[in-house]
């Protein structure tokens, strides 16, 4: 049920920090040992800097697993969005700084069964787990689409990366500056409605919780399997603290139960999650 490799804790050096916008940056970290073990959808627990304020690590999806020409993993990266104290620090780090990285952690995405298509639905920083998933899908030769929504066109990143992997891209922005005007669920709903057979397309989603709830509901309504990657405040990332729980319904049990999203997730069957 719970599959996990032994996580590593690496005091990784920052190789580069590319600021994509006023709020987003990509931090490349010298933690190849973690990258080599990471499956799409897994995460790290990260702590930049010393001292006990801030005290706890913070969870981040592994964004890229970076390889050299021979295919050897050299580094990983995280896509960071400023939200508070730690993400604020991660935005300002310069090469040479150190970031403690514990990982890989959590249950990854499940590749599509029965040779169907894969649709990835990303909201904002929810793009993070899909770079590695897109690579895995390309390797499995699964046709893939990325539905990607952001506040504005300027916050749509890494489109070329996905294009290079042959991923079809559908964009939506809340201000209408690029792609569909509105939420990413708008083009998703249209596309789901146009699908011929139920169950042939697996929907993967990561983003704000209301978006995930909407995607899960849409997928269920159109009889497509759906996996969502949920964000929770996480104290430990290893199942130790019970802080990160998500209410899920097990098959055959009408009563929802709290499960720890750091080990039972962060990827969940969208139909099992009890949305608020």
């Amino acid at each position, binding site marked *: 049920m719970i599959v*996990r*490799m*032994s*996580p590593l*804790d690496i005091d990784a050096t920052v190789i580069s920090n590319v600021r994509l916008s006023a709020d987003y940056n990509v931090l490349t970290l010298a933690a190849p040992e973690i990258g080599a073990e990471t499956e799409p959808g897994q995460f790290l627990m990260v*702590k930049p800097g010393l001292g*006990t*304020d*801030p*005290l*706890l*690590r913070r969870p981040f999806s592994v964004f890229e697993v970076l390889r050299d020409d021979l295919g050897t993993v050299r580094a990983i990266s995280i896509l960071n969005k400023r939200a508070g104290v730690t993400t604020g620090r991660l935005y300002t780090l310069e090469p040479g700084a150190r970031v*403690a990285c*514990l990982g890989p952690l959590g249950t990854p995405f499940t590749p599509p069964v029965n040779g169907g298509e894969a649709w990835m639905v990303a909201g904002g920083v929810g793009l993070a787990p899909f770079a590695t998933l897109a690579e895995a899908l390309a390797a499995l030769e699964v046709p893939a689409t990325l539905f990607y929504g952001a506040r504005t066109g300027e916050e749509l990143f890494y489109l070329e990366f996905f294009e290079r992997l042959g991923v079809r891209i559908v964009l939506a922005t809340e201000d209408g500056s690029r792609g569909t005007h509105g939420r990413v669920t708008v083009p998703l709903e249209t596309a789901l409605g146009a699908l011929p057979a139920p169950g042939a397309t697996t929907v993967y989603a990561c983003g704000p919780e209301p978006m995930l709830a909407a995607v899960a509901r849409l997928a269920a309504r159109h009889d497509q399997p759906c996996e969502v990657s949920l964000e*929770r*405040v996480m*104290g*430990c990332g*290893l*199942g*130790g*603290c*019970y*802080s*990160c*729980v998500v209410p899920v319904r097990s098959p055959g049990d009408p009563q929802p*139960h*709290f499960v720890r999203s750091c*080990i039972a997730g962060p990827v969940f069957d969208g139909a099992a999650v009890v949305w608020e």
Partner: protein
Amino acid sequence: MDLSVRIGSLEMPNPLIAASGCFGYGLEYEEVVNLASLGGVAVKGLFLNAREGHPPPRIVETPSGMLNAIGLQGIGVHRFIDERLPRLREAGARVIVNICGTTIDEYVELAKILSQEEGVGALELNISCPNIKEGGIQFGCSLTGTHAVVSAVRKATTLPVIPKLTPNVTAPATFARAAEDAGADAISLVNTFLALAIDVESRRPRLSNVLGGLSGPAIRPIAVRMVWECRQEVKIPIIGMGGIMDARDALEFMIAGANAVQIGTANFVDPFVWGKILDGLTSYMQRHSIARLQDLVGTMDTSAPAAAHA
């Protein structure tokens, strides 16, 4: 070098114990740390029955600390015995079961059930959880309540009985005395400090339970003081805790009077902390020519302060 410590019939190779609620049921950490290498593992607080706990948010970070109000989510004692205890036994862990009840009878029943199982090393009586009304805190905040629950459990088991004291009282040492008088084999302290964090934008509490328990380095100086006060009051072993992050912190508790220590929050920050602390303890023993770590317990020298200019 001898790092061992004994609490009643429980012999531990070293004084480092995983704190209850901070290490799951122990098995969650099997890939990260060899459970047999720890002095002991205090498992997540258990009631007779399974509990769902509080809705999230259950934790919030504060300066050098964290609040938690998990609400003792747990699988109940029977599933623990069936599903977890055998694997803990196999892993060679010295298991301390942290038990919670709403009545003295529940503590007694839990003690009786667990006493029949192989692989239970000791019982830690959680009479100090600040986060739930029915978590035994009514016993932990009353001297007669503490005495009564410890005496009752004492009669029900031959396992070591370790009441876990709350720091949310005027004089923890009087509770230590009540526990010793009632036949406790040792005391654990401190549980978390009752605390509150408010989001000023929404004017709402940051935790679903409103109040939570403060742990982590923030509380360490208060916890060390309480251990020192209790050391003056009782002869039984003390298991000290509260914000231990490294070997120096663990030694501080031992010098104040703790025979063993528990590590909770630090384990979240660094699950590999165990080996580092163990190494730190042995190198300290070498540097100070200490053959038995227990000889360090309660040796604070109050004749003069430490030089400010080291």
